[in-house]
């Protein structure tokens, strides 16, 4: 599960990373956002959506995406 701050909400972690980059010589990098990756094995993938909504993310402030082999 990839969890990221919702578009439009100030993400100070992303801002801090973005500001650090030019000092290291990386230019032209913008719109940095720092999110979270949660890896897990699950027997019943149909639970994943609810699992994301109830615990792994707060839908008010974060978006999530379910990745990987969910067959």
């Amino acid at each position, binding site marked *: 599960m990839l969890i990221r701050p919702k578009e439009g909400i100030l993400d100070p972690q992303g801002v801090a990373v973005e500001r650090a980059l030019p000092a290291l010589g990386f230019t032209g990098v913008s719109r940095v956002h720092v999110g979270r990756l949660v890896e897990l094995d699950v027997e019943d993938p149909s639970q994943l959506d609810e699992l994301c909504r109830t*615990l792994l993310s*707060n839908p*008010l402030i974060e978006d999530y995406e379910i990745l990987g082999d969910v067959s």
Partner: protein
Amino acid sequence: MRFGVVQFPGSCDEVDAVLAAERVGEAELLWHRDADLRGVDAVIVPGGFSYGDYLRVGAIARFSPVMESVIRFAQEGGPVLGICNGFQVLCEAGLLPGALLPNTRLRFVCRQADLVVGTANSAWSGDCTTGEILSIPVKHTTGRYYAPEAMLDELEADDRVLVRYANGHNPNGSLRDIAGVVGEGRNVVGLMPHPEHAVDPLTGSVDGLKLFASAASLRV
């Protein structure tokens, strides 16, 4: 009035909350694994780092046995106060609108703040006057109040802003300077500042006592 103060692993302000509540009534601790609220008249969810605040502040604590009972208690109209981490837990539990995000400057802030009372119409602010200034300390890293614009408009229209940081006192980038909010039923409130640390002249202010006294004067 008998107050119950929830204790999670990682709570750190539960003893101060008990001591503050004891100035206006009786108080006892409620262990997180125990769903029994022992018949208390009001519940305080204190500050700290419940369950280490792993994953996201307040997210795991919200699913503890005691919180399931606190949610029911709140839905039945019982007075509930969330302080700092407790505020975060109540937001995660859906008892209060909005969420708390990392401070704009990503730093821990610990300082005395002036708060302007937004409403005296709640279970925990009846002894205050709207517009009154309270001097209460803040100490947190994740205290930036956030809610979508429409939700903020609704909060203001419904007179549900408990306290705002006074001009120049917003330590964390909270939207519209909001430091605390009131739930729909007006019995549940939450705030980032720590009223339980402002109950004795020795620490510079007794303004925090007003919240506990407001609840103590409720008829239960």
